[in-house]
Structures are given as C-alpha cells and as structure tokens.
C-alpha cells in the first residue's frame, strides 16, 4: 500500500521529461509488435512462421524469404515475444533476489553483510555472458535455465545498489522508531526501508531489463538460447546474416527492433534516474539545525 503512494509520483515525474516520452513511445511500439505479432502476422501475410513461402532469399512478400524459404516478415512479427518474456522474467528474478539480499545485507550489517556481499563479489567476478554460456553448455539450452542464469547474474549487481541505498536510510530516525516499536525485521525492510529505496531500484530495473534483452538476444544468436525452428530475433540475425547483401531485411528488421527497444528502455531508465535523484533526500534540509549531541 505504501508503494501505491510512491510509484505514481516517481513515474509521473519521470514521464514529464521529454526523453521519457520518446523512450516510452519506442518501447510501446516494439512491445506492441512483439505481443500482437504472433496473432496478426499469419493473418496479415497469409504465411505461418515455419511454413514455406517461396524460394530461399527471394524478395517476395513484404520482406522476402529467408534461407529456408520462410516468410521473413511473419517470422519477425512472431520472434519478439519469447525474447521479451524471457528478458522480463530474468529481470524480475534478478531484481527481487538482489533487492532482498541487498536490503538484508545493508540493514543487518556485520557477518551476514560480509557473507552476502563477498558471495556476490565471487559471482560478479564472472563475466555475465561467460557464466551463462557455462551453465547452458552443462545443462542445455532450456528456457527456464536462460531466465535463471541471467536473473542470478543480475542479482549481485542489484544487491550492491540495494545495499548502498539501505545503508543510507537504515539509521534514519523513522527506522529507529520502528525498531523501538519492536517491528519485526522483515516488516521493517518491507514497510520502512523498501518504499524509501524504490528510486534506485527503479533505475536498476530499467538498466537490468536493457541488459536482459541484450543477453537473451546474444545467446540466441550464438545458438544457445531459443532454438530453431522457433522464430526469434536473435536467431533470425544469425540465420540470415549470410544473405545480408542479397536480402537484408531478415537481419535488419530484428536488429532494428532490438536496438529501438534497448534505446527506448534506456531512455526511460535515464529519466527515472533523474527523477529519482531529485528526491533522494529523505527530508527537507534543516536550515535551523542546532547544537545536538
């Protein structure tokens, strides 16, 4: 219930910035294509994603055919949804995991803090993509694994931010007051700390979403993410890159979509960051502060 009073104000402040409006428009367009595409595509072009539409790499239809003679535009329209769902799930997992660990570490301090943060340092020392490659090489290219691996590698990055923000508010008087009223730690974290660190967490959310999109697309491109014959943007880039000169749409359309989406979410993140930085202080500066112990 506390979140309902904070998020609209932060969002509204962020959305009043022009760059946020541009970012939102770009994101909505790409998300719209990805969500509606699988239904609209076959109806619009008359082909389905795996059916043969003609000879390979021919200019027929809206965007021609791919290496196996499938309709590129239909596959483009259908190829975004899985990517988006995976990216969103991985971001959500990373954010929740990271926020919980970070708040716990920041609020508790001491041994638990060291344990959590040093543990996440170990995880941070692996490059995210290499870690994902390792896990997929061992277990296989499963959807849940993709989400899990990307989510888990996000967690320590989010945890650092959450911990820092928690440390900044944990000694505020209102938290001490809650402690004085014997509020259990879980509720202090949820009710008193979390609403006051939504700003940095929102920024992390945007940033991690952007990264997630990139990782899922990269892994698919490398053939370790979403598997053929499923239509997928990352996969399409790989499949069609050999014909880039002859029939460029098979590469250009997915590249464009991923780029626009990434730029869009980044613009939103930036405006969230600048909106949040305007309210990072918990109170008005005390101009009349006097001698105190």
């Amino acid at each position, binding site marked *: 219930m*506390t979140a309902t009073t904070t998020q609209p104000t932060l969002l509204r402040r962020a959305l009043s910035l022009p760059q946020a409006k541009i970012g939102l428009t770009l994101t909505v367009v790409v998300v719209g294509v990805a969500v509606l595409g699988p239904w609209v595509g076959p109806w619009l072009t008359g082909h389905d994603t795996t059916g043969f539409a003609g000879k390979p790499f021919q200019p027929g239809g809206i965007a021609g055919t791919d290496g196996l003679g499938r309709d590129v535009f239909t596959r483009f329209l259908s190829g975004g949804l899985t990517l988006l769902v995976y990216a969103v799930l991985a971001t959500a997992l990373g954010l929740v995991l990271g926020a919980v660990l970070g708040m716990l570490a920041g609020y508790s301090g001491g041994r638990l803090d060291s344990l959590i943060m040093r543990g996440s340092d170990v995880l941070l020392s692996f490059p995210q993509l290499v870690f994902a490659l390792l896990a997929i090489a061992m277990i296989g290219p499963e959807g849940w694994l993709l989400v899990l691996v990307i989510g888990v590698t996000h967690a320590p990055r989010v945890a650092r931010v959450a911990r820092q923000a928690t440390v900044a508010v944990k000694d505020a*008087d209102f938290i001490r007051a809650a402690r004085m009223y014997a509020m259990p730690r879980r509720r202090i974290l949820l009710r008193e700390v979390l609403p006051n660190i939504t700003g940095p967490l929102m920024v992390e959310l945007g940033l991690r979403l952007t990264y997630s999109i990139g990782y899922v697309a990269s892994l698919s491109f490398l053939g370790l993410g979403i598997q053929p014959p499923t239509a997928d943007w990352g996969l399409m880039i790989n499949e069609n890159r050999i014909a880039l000169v002859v029939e460029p749409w098979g590469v250009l359309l997915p590249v464009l979509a991923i780029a626009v989406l990434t730029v869009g979410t980044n613009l939103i993140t930036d405006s969230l960051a600048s909106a949040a930085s305007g309210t990072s202080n918990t109170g008005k500066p005390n101009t*009349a*502060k006097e*001698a105190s*112990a």
Partner: protein
Amino acid sequence: MTAPATVTHTLLARELRVDTATGHPVLKGVSYEIAPGEVLALVGESGSGKTTAGLAALGHFRRGLIHTGGGVSVQSDDGEPVSVLEVGDRQRRSLRGSTVAYIPQDPAASLNPALRIGKQIGEVLETHGYGASAAERSTRIAEVLGEVGLPDDEAYRRRYPHELSGGQQQRVGIAMAFACRPNVVVLDEPTTGLDVTTQTLVLRTISALTTEHDTAALYITHDLAVVATIAHRVAVLRRGEVVECGSTEEVLRAPAHAYTRELVTAVPHLDGTGATDTSGSGRSTPGSSTPGATESGAAGASAADMEVAGDAEHTPVLSVSGLSVAYGEHRVLRDVSLDVRAGECLMLLGESGSGKTTLSQCVAGLGLPHAGTVSVSGTPLAASTQRRTAEQLRSVQYVFQSPYSSLNPRKTIAQSVELPLRTLTDLDAAARRERVTETLERVRLDPALAGRLPDELSGGQRQRAAIARGLVTTPDVLLCDEVTSALDVSVQATIVDLLCELRRELGMAMLFVTHNIALARHVADRIAVLRGGEVVESGTVGEVLDSPSHEYTRELLANTPRM
C-alpha cells in the same frame, strides 16, 4: 552600543529582487545598509530569504535563483563603491575574500581536512596577493590567529582542522575571513552548533574584530538572543520583505511590526516570561503554573489526574540508577541516577558530548548495552527493545529531535501515527483509526491532514505528528530529545506549550532533553545538569537557576545570551 556616526556606508543593498526559476519570488525588494564597524543582523525564520539576501552581498545566488532587480554596492579598498552584481566574474572573485569575506555556518565542513590551518589561511592571502613575500604573509597569519584568540606559534599552525575543537575551527574560519582585512564580512549563523560557552567566545571575537578594523558585518541568524548580544541594528525579514529595521534596542524592546512582536515574545527566557504565556493567542493559560514550580506544584498536577495512583508522588514512574555506558575506552555515561514522578517534567540539560542523548536512548531501549538499571513503575527494563514486552514498550515513548527524519517520508501521517498501535496493541483497524484521530486532535493537528505525506506538512505540523505517535499509546513516560531544536523559534514556542499542556492533561512523566537552559522555566519542574556523562547538579528549576551550586551550571547561566 551605538554605531559610529558616518555618512558613507560600506555595504549598501538596494531593492534586491530574486525569484526562483519557476517565478516564485524569494526576495521582494530588500534594502539594507551597513556603516563601517557596524553589525547588522538579518533576522528571519527558515524560508524568509535571509540567507539569499545575505549571500547577495557576495554576489552569489544559490542555484535555481534568478536575480531580477536591485543591486549591492560595496566600498572597495580605494574608497570607491563597487557594484557587486554588475562587475564581471573575474573581478567579483577577486572582491570575495579580500573586500567581502564570508564566514559559513559549519566550520568543520568549510575547512579542508587535508590542509594544515596555517597553510589554509596562507592560501587566502596568496590568492589575493596579500603581502610581498612569504615571510610577510607568515607574519600576517600569526597576527590574525592572535586576533581571533588562538595561539600563534608554529606548532599550532601545523595542526589539521580535526585536531581542533568546534569553537577553534570556527575561529580559524573567522581568521581566514579577516586575513585580508576585508571591508565587509557576511556571517551565516556562525555560532549555530556551538555550545553556549564557545558561542560567547566566538561572538566576542567577532565583535572585537569588527570594531577594531571598522569592518561592516552582516550577521545572518534566527536567534534573537544572539542578536541582542552582538548587533547594532536589526533587519527583520519575512517572506522576502524587510518588515522592520532599526537599532537592536528599539526592535527588540519595542517592536513595531506584529511579526517582530511575535518573534520576540516567542523567544524563551531564563526568567520564564515569553514562550509559554505569549505565543498562544487565547489558549488555556499555558505555562502559568510552570515557572518556579515546586515539589508541591508537581504533586498537585499529578494528583489532579485521576488515572494516576494516589501515591504517585512517592514512587517514581521512571527510575534510572547507576547507568554507565562506554564506547570502547570512552565512557559516555558514568553512574547516572535519575527519578521522574508521574506528572512531573525533568529537564536533562547538557551540551553536545554530555551523553544526554545516549541516556535518553538507553531509557528508550535504542542504546548500547549498559550497566545499571532503567525501571518504569518499579519494573526493570531490558536494554534492548527486542527483549521488552509490548506493555513496557507502550509505557515508554520517545520523540525524536528532527521531525524531518523521524517520520517515514513514504508513509502518510495516519500510517506513521498508527504504527505503535499496530505493533504494541491488539486493537482492530476501526479502533486504531479512531485512536489516531483522537490523538491528532489532542496535539492540535487537523485530522484532515492525516492522509498527507510528511513532505506536505510544515516543520511544526510534523513535530506535532511525531508527538502524536508518541502519545497514541498513552505512555507513562515521554522522552523528548531536543524536540524543539530543529524548529523555528515561533514554532518552538507552540510545541513547548503543547507539551506542557499534554503533560498536565495526561499526567505522564516527561524527560525533556535539551541544550537550551532558557527553556527550563517553561517546561520543567526539576533540572538535572549533565556534563561529561555525569550529573553535576540536580534540583528544582527554582533552586538550580536562582542559586546554582556547581560551577559549570553558573558558567552556563552566565553565557546564555539574554535579550
């Protein structure tokens, strides 16, 4: 004290107008002038524009403020007036420090912690090309340190700021400002944050220097008692306008403007007039029984409350005995013992570092592990709130110093006030809501504000909400930790009034922790003076103020500025 008669003014501000970027006026045509050797106090509450008006003399406006009209002229060294706001950036920079100097509020923050103090003063001289050689500058550094009453030897100049006390740091700040013999100094609340004894020293230093060098001083402050001590003339600012300007004597003794009168009467006095009996217009005789309240007065107040047991005056509600706390080697509290009875208010008086906050936090259960016992109504309490029962937690409540940080900025007032009821009682939602409304009315806060966030309330309203949170569980002991020090003086008075009334209405015991001895007669029945972790003197307010037995108390009383 009268200003030397002159025809020319060293500093002259004419019709200054400043707006925020959004067009909201901050200064609406402010004028003031200062003669050589004169101290003009710029007085106002937070948001009155006093700092903006003062910093304009340096040609500086905070980010987001736009200068829309008027000008400031300063007499330069060759006697010609220079218009600070019109000259170029380069010339303005060279004026600052040499002709117009600034002494900021927080000395610790304004000194570079990595530079030795001698070097820092030397830098100012070097920047402004003072003196022909290093030797000459070195002589000047020694001289100016002597002028502000600090040792001028080489060893002292090689110290770092952290090796100095707060008062010494502020005097180094003053030395830096006076190093180039400026014609004008702007002082921005330079003694806020200093102990009264140190404050007296610093004020004397400033007075002596301005008189000696014929420097015009602009003293920005909210503290009228300090104004009475140092200023020749006063300009009272309110919402960006000078409502009254005149000699200190005139303005403080016979204020012409209603707002000035309000400010002057709100200042707490050692002899008990002011604050409690004048600020509240037509309220029920606040404070009339407090001044010089005796043992019988306190007992009478508690007896009037029917809920308090009949023998309340014999058994203390809050009893602290043999309390000792140490941070490692440093002992913050040494064997402190206190008793507070029902309906009684004990003022715990101490300066920064005396351990007064540690003591009150130990009572509230927020402190470190300690030796000794804290008991409420005869039951000893555990050191940490986690091991206290809900009933014990309910009976002791704590009101924090700053209402700006004690309320969760993301929760509505009602949610914050409801918090102790949720965790400490088993009332249902409807009963809780009713209790919250009732308590908000009790602290004279419009229940319509209950749905607001703290940001949407004024400082005084927030502190009322914080007090409501303390009272909502009807505690037996209310701990007030410097509750007035973050508030404007007129708001301070109303909060003090409120606490006095509530104590009388509810018959609870109150521990009022403060550094301001002037509040004593307004709130307390008894005083305990804390110094270096020890209670050096305790007794009724009358006894302690009229015939202090400890030297430290006498010193405090002597150094407290009076109007």
